[in-house]
């Protein structure tokens, strides 16, 4: 009985020492890897100038002046054009059933939904998903999803990293609509340009509140955005991985809590 008590005391002591050790060694909160911070910050300041002078005002007008149903239809149209890329990614992610649902959504919305202006598929119970090649790479990368390679500030598009930038390029190359317009040799570049432009304005109009908040409440906007972007992308990838990944984000947070 007595020996048992001793043993459990020793175990407790060892456990406490180990945890103390964690507090010193495992920071669990490594900063985002940003080896090209100087050029990134330069690009960030250009992006901000463009944003303040052109993009944000346009996004505000779009949000406040364009009637809500019209905004919603534009959103649906753009989403519908993006469905094939999502389906391709879902196949690569090893989820052909989900890809089939996405393609069913695409077919329903392109026909009954009048070229995607109305999201009839959701009403029929076909839920929308959004996948991109950055997430697909992250799913298979075998590293912490916070680690997306070096951080990268892209022109106009904004925060990215090696993983998501590569993904963006892959999605662009795999996009059937881009291939179609390219092969038809019709001058559809204008339409593609309009599509990408509308995507930017629509996305910006939906992030006005969040980005204003981040800017106002940070002392280093660039660093705050870098952290928020990395965390958000990691969260999306973690949701994909959850079924297979044992080392979860919560475990990482436990370590963070021990850091001083």
């Amino acid at each position, binding site marked *: 009985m007595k020996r048992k008590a*001793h043993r459990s*005391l*020793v175990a*407790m*002591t060892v456990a*406490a*020492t180990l*945890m*103390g050790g964690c*507090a010193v060694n495992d920071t669990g*909160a490594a*900063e*985002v890897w940003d080896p090209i911070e100087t050029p990134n910050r330069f690009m960030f300041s250009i992006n901000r100038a463009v944003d303040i002078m052109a993009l944000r005002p346009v996004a505000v007008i779009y949000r406040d002046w364009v009637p*809500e149903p019209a905004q919603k239809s534009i959103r649906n149209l753009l989403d519908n054009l993006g469905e094939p890329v999502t389906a391709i990614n879902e196949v690569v992610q090893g989820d052909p059933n989900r890809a089939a649902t996405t393609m069913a959504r695409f077919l329903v919305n392109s026909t009954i939904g009048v070229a995607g202006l109305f999201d009839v598929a959701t009403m029929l119970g076909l839920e929308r998903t959004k996948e991109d090649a950055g997430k697909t790479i992250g799913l298979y990368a075998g590293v912490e999803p916070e680690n997306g390679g070096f951080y990268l500030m892209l022109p106009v598009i904004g925060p990215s990293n090696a993983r998501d930038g590569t993904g963006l390029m892959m999605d662009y190359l795999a996009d059937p609509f881009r291939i179609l317009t390219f092969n038809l040799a019709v001058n559809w570049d204008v339409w593609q340009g309009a599509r990408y432009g509308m995507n930017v304005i629509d996305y910006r109009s939906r992030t006005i*509140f969040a980005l204003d*908040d*981040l800017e*106002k*409440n*940070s*002392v*280093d906007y*660039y*660093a*705050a955005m*870098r*952290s*928020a972007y990395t*965390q*958000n992308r*990691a*969260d*999306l990838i*973690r949701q994909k991985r959850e079924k297979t990944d044992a080392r979860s984000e*919560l475990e990482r*947070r*436990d370590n*963070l*809590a*021990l*850091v*001083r």
Partner: protein
Amino acid sequence: MSLLAFRRVILRLAAVAAATVFVLPAVAQPVSAADASKLIETVAAEVIEIVKTKTGADRQAAIRKVLQANFDLPFMGRSALGRYWNGASETQRSRFLAAVETAEARAYSERFGQYAGQTVTVGKVTSRPNGVSIVDSQLNQTNGQPIKLQWEVRNGGQGPLITDVKVEGVSMVMTRRSDFSSYIQNNGGTVEPLIQELEARAAR
């Protein structure tokens, strides 16, 4: 080894263990799942009530009270300052915590200024081995997708308190931490310029 010497070793180890437990604030009493979700539900209800009935400075003061009562602000501030906390003097620490508290109260009352009938649904609670509870919840909007909110609740000795909020996977404390650490590194590596900047903002 004689039994007496063995016992002495054990006692000494026990003392070390006890000291470790007291030094580490993370080793806290566990928070029950029911307590954690009740805390979030109460806070959400209180905040929605404040936003509906108060505006301007009144709202900010009321939000600040809710923050003080339900959030472990010193803990959050300490985590946000990370390793620089150790290098800060006692006065710097208290000045920093005061400035951060003002900033948070202002930020939250502005965030809730956009209130348009949103509701919070509390979901499942995950208990962690270190006594922390993670409460999943959803902010339901009248138009658009619901927003994913996660709350970290821990008991640091004064009952269960919120120590972090994650919006769509973005932790407030982690973002602050990154933000502050970058600011400190770009301003001579000491906390003083950061504290002055935060105080200047709080005074505005």
